[in-house]
């Protein structure tokens, strides 16, 4: 249904070149699936999402790549076509901060009614009924439909934003960290509702988060982003249980799991890559304990390892070794204590 081919996104910086926030992403999403997009902040998750729904900041653009949605290339559409035919109707978005998504001078209900009526030919009363029904489904008191955004708590605003995103039965919903700022009880409720409604209206969802446990809880597939690229993509089971990319392995070990009694957290040393002038070779090499000379010189190409499991790593075929080694704290610590050696390798 959605197919991205070699998508690049750049932000022009005043006089300082450009930030290559997304650097060649190819990924596809089928109907009725939830795709989780995880990665550190700055890895390009939000940028990719905004590129799809064309809400990039003014200085951002897509210089290369195709975003195919139901057989049309979205990059070819004019802004007007996109606004009237795609956004909200077909693809909708729940932004990172819901409060900012609403206009403070109109009531929440009013904004949902407006959204419905600009895209569909229904009466005001009908639209209102639909908004109330959505509120009900999301567990907000329908009586509060005439409240202004500031009267809502963070959790309610987030749910109201989801109501707005669902109002036109879109086929694709992009939710950018919809629950990051919320408490677990509300987070759980929102994610369950999102999942239920998604199944009810048979749409697909791209859920952006940095919380592995959230994605593994409700997603069907996971794509791991690093430095503007999708470095690993597979179904949830595979990513959680049999990951092949060292970065995914690292993330998994860095995350405290409520199930574990005696977990040894292992952090990934180093800092995210430079996106202004991305160097040759694997973007993760400076932080990767498994980096070889090849890694520093040659950018790994995506390769498939069984049923839709795509990995960008030269050593992905050594899964067993990587998994074993990544579990040892020393593997990652060595890297931290010997940065010079790494730097020398870089110079070669």
């Amino acid at each position, binding site marked *: 249904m959605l197919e991205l081919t070699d998508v690049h996104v750049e932000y022009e910086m005043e006089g300082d070149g450009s930030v290559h926030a997304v650097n060649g992403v190819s990924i596809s999403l089928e109907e009725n699936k939830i795709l989780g997009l995880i990665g550190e902040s700055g890895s390009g998750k939000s940028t990719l999402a905004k590129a799809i729904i064309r809400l990039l900041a003014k200085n951002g653009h897509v210089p290369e790549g195709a975003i195919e949605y139901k057989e049309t290339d979205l990059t070819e559409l004019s802004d007007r076509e996109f606004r009237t035919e795609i956004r909200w109707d077909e693809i909708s978005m729940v932004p990172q901060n819901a409060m900012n998504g609403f206009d403070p001078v109109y009531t929440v209900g009013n904004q949902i009614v407006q959204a419905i009526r600009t895209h569909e030919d229904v009466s005001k009363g009908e639209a209102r009924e639909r908004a109330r029904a959505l509120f009900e489904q999301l567990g907000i008191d329908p009586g509060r439909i005439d409240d202004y955004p500031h009267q809502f708590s963070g959790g309610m605003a987030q749910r109201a934003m989801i109501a707005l995103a669902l109002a036109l039965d879109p086929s694709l919903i992009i939710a950018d960290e919809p629950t990051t700022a919320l408490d677990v009880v509300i987070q759980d409720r929102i994610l369950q509702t999102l999942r239920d409604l998604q199944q009810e209206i048979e749409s697909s969802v791209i859920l952006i988060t940095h919380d592995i446990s959230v994605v593994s809880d409700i997603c069907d597939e996971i794509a791991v982003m690093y430095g503007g690229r999708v470095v690993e993509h597979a179904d949830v089971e595979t990513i959680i249980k049999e990951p092949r990319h060292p970065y995914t392995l690292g993330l998994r070990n860095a995350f405290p799991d409520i199930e574990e009694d005696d977990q040894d957290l292992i952090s990934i040393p180093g*800092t995210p890559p430079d996106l202004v002038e991305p160097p040759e070779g694997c973007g993760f090499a400076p932080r990767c304990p498994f980096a070889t000379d090849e890694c520093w010189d040659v950018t790994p190409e995506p390769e498939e390892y069984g049923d839709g499991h795509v990995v960008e790593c030269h050593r992905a075929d050594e899964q067993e070794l990587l998994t074993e080694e990544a579990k040892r704290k020393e593997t990652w610590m060595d890297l931290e204590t010997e940065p*010079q050696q790494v730097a020398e390798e870089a110079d070669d």
Partner: protein
Amino acid sequence: MSVKKHLPANVESKLTSSRVFSQIKDGVSTAYELYRSDRLGQFGIVVLAAFVFIAIFAPIIAPYSPGARHRRDDGSLARLDAPSTDHLLGTTHHGQDVLSQLLVSARVSVFVGFLAAFIAVFIGTNVGLISAYYGGWVDDILMRIVDIAYGLPFLPFVIVLVFIFGANIVNIMLVIAAILWRDSARVVRSEVLSQKQRPYVESARAIGASDFRILYRHVFPNVLPLTVLYMAFAVAYAIMYEASIAFLGFGDPNVYSWGRMMYQAYTHGAIRDAWWWVLPAGVCIMLLVSSVFFIGRTLEEITNPEIRH
């Protein structure tokens, strides 16, 4: 940042010191850039510098003593002579050289302007800091005083005070400061109210820092840009107030000032005829006040990047 990890120590510290250096350079060059791109700010700086120069060197530059009475060749008092090569800006009703008076008068404006503004902002900043920081009844009382200061009508207040304390330049300066402090008190207070909610204040309290330390070492540096900005505007107002007071005849009779020059021209009925006596003083007030305003405006743009575009 990622480069940092891979560098040996000595290179790194060099990197840092050069970074600090370049940061300072950056700061200076943004300020410079703004001045360059902002013609009015540039104009302000040049004009202000010129007036400060004149104020300092007035006795040396002035062709005559400002009080000296000049006589014409025929021995009569050079009353209201039009500009000539002897007297570039003509003479007054008493035969005094206008240019010399004009130059010497710059001292009062610059002196009163800066000192009154400094006193006003000093008081205002401290009132704002203390009021906002302690809150409660301290705030209630100080802010009521500010409200009262806002209620004071400028002229009657000045007349009464000058009448009571006498019209000397120091008193006038204090009176102006007494009017001007209220603005900075208000803005500083509201800024401190927001600053004191910031977690860094809690960090300071947690290590046992005294209130004094928190106020002056932690909060104050964060309101300093605002204070400087209000200082610039206060200077402009102080100059204007001083000129108005003198023009109305409540000024210090022992010092020359632009306001007093215009007052004298007015009382001698020369305000319509002897343009050379009135106009230069008026132009000087206007130039000095607007130069300070323009500098303030440019400062505002530097300290508040949101309005830069």
